[in-house]
């Protein structure tokens, strides 16, 4: 059964929203065309999860007004703890409202741009025009990418010019505290030639329930010899239908590293793809997941190699409890001509209850002879011998299980570069697996 509801949003709605943000005509047209495409395009087909009956199109309201923050002291407590005091490079969005932005004078002087997506669309039309939904994600791929482009109502733009090395991480926080808000957020991160940057975003719901949609797209462009580390912790409330697509394009000698902590309580379809276009490019993707309740989730991680001598690493660790279910698709694809490419992946799922379901599907698609590739996958319970070992030192069963689970999810926690975010992820894990 396919829910082909006609969208409730009309072309006129899109045009007037675009006008309210003073968007250039080109961008308005992009939205209008995408809306038309969304009417006819099919949903994506995440392998092994049937989503045709999921609601991706109906939501209470397209955009909401929320308060801005004139200083960090006004932040809600649970958000305050995410931010290090000395954090200078920070963007905060409150539901759909750009609410706080700061960037160090030094980085401003070097030409770094950190701004909400609307400002970027208006004031940096050349850069946005060059990168927005061009090489990483295209609006006309399927219904959800088209809807995203048509309804984009938030997000952030980060640009790092040639040869600029941003030492401190750039932090972005999306606060959700309006049950009726929907998040069509777009993060566009561009690292120009030989630049380096670490970007860490957090999605945090401070209300227990959501009625809206989350249709989130991130695009990361690493130009030649650039390095981008992209950390994300998603903690969106139950009730959202979440589609999140994070993609990167890695050019020659560049490197994109992902560290994704997927802690939503909502049903979630997640795609994380890295295109290793350039020779010697590296894509390293680490994802950890905790599923609980009756959550249904699908995590598809892809690394696609075109570049010679490109290296792709996929690590996915999922913990499933209650009657939650999740599919973990890992795809390493080596295109013809990508000689000496290396595609490795590891997917492991830990089940904490008999009703939980987890499915790890490692897939290698190789169209070139001179390559190396490997995969490992496992689905199982906490190893009784590990528990015996820990307990034989006096550690209680509960604490032993906790140690094993935290250890299992450590690969992402330990690489997040912002202490507050690291701590929050640890706490969320603690709360979810308890």
């Amino acid at each position: 059964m396919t829910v082909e509801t006609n969208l409730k949003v009309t072309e006129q709605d899109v045009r007037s929203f675009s006008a309210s943000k003073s968007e250039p005509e080109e961008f308005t047209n992009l939205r209008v065309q995408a809306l038309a495409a969304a009417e006819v395009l099919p949903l994506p087909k995440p392998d092994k999860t049937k989503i045709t009956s999921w609601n991706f199109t109906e939501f209470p309201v397209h955009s909401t007004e929320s308060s801005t923050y004139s200083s960090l002291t006004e932040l809600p407590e649970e958000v305050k703890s995410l931010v290090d005091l000395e954090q200078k490079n920070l963007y905060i969005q409150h539901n759909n409202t750009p609410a706080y932005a700061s960037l160090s004078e030094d980085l401003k002087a070097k030409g770094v741009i950190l701004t909400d997506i609307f400002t970027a669309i208006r004031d940096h039309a050349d850069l946005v025009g060059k990168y927005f939904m061009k090489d990483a994600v295209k609006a006309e791929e399927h219904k959800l990418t088209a809807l995203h482009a048509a309804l984009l109502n938030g997000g952030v733009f980060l640009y790092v010019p040639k040869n600029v090395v941003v030492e401190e991480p750039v932090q972005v926080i999306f606060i959700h505290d309006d049950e009726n808000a929907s998040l069509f957020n777009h993060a566009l991160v561009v690292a120009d030639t030989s630049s380096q940057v670490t970007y860490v975003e957090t999605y945090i719901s401070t209300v227990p329930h959501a009625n809206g949609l989350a249709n989130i797209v991130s695009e990361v462009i690493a130009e030649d010899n650039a390095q981008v580390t992209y950390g994300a912790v998603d903690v969106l409330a139950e009730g959202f239908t979440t589609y999140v697509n994070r993609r990167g394009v890695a050019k020659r000698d560049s490197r994109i590293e992902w560290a994704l902590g997927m802690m939503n309580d909502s049903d979630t379809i997640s795609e994380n793809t890295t295109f290793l276009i350039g020779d010697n490019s590296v894509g390293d993707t680490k994802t950890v997941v905790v599923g609980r309740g009756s959550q249904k989730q699908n995590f598809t991680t892809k690394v696609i190699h075109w570049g010679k001598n490109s290296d792709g690493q996929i690590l996915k660790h999922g913990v499933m409890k209650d009657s939650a279910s999740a599919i973990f698709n890992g795809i390493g694809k080596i295109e013809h001509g990508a000689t000496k490419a290396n595609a490795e992946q590891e997917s492991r799922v830990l089940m904490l209850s008999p009703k939980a379901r987890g499915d790890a599907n490692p897939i290698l698609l190789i169209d070139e002879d001179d390559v190396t590739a490997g995969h490992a996958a496992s689905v199982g319970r906490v190893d009784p011998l590990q528990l015996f070992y820990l307990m034989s030192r006096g550690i209680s069963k509960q604490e032993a299980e906790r140690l094993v689970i935290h250890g299992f999810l450590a690969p992402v926690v330990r690489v997040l570069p912002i202490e507050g975010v690291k701590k929050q992820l640890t706490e969320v894990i603690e709360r979810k697996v308890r």
Partner: protein
Amino acid sequence: MSTLVIKDLHVKIEDKEILKGVNLTINTGEIHAIMGPNGTGKSTLASAIMGHPKYEVTSGSVTLDGEDVLEMEVDERARAGLFLGMQYPSEISGVTNADFMRSAINARREEGEEISLMKFIRELDSKMETLDMDQEMAQRYLNEGFSGGEKKRNEILQLMMIKPTFAILDEIDSGLDIDALKVVSEGINQMKGESFGCLIITHYQRLLNYITPDHVHVMMQGRVVKSGGKDLALKLEAEGYDWIKTELGIEDETVGQEA
């Protein structure tokens, strides 16, 4: 003084009976060594005392100062004072050696009485030095990627940090070169004292050149068949086990064979 008493212990794995009535009494202040060829039930005894999930005790008793050990969960046994140095320690990814050891120490302490980080680090550093272990091993994940020798040293490090009343060391010497063996023995010897008892399980007399046992026992066919002093170990080293088999009329010493 504390006493660990093993009485007529019968243990099976799946449906096979491995231990067929083991009797042994260990007091603090004593070092006992259990020797014996492969397949005679030595490691089963060690694992069963600690409560390994694969082994089932079918009859007999293990008591620690009169308390029924077999009624206790594995962690309770440990907190009551038992320690098992394992032949094949588990690898646990994502949990650092240091964090693990601190959790183990704090599991024995009341809330609010946890060991201070400074004191813990000082103690860890000095024990690691004794065992000739690289300091960076404290921050590595528990046993992950450790060589055989590193795992054995790490077991002894835990022993020294946790300071149990009774340690059972299951083939702690296998696979160690002579330098590592000396270092591991030095660690165990540092533990010796009035409030510490030890049961060392080994194939080889070599370890006993560095650690002097007060009592030596020989296991065959799932029982302790001979006990003696240090001299027994020396005789075994010189003459092997055949004289015991002859003396007791045993043809095949492994479990499953009857005298």
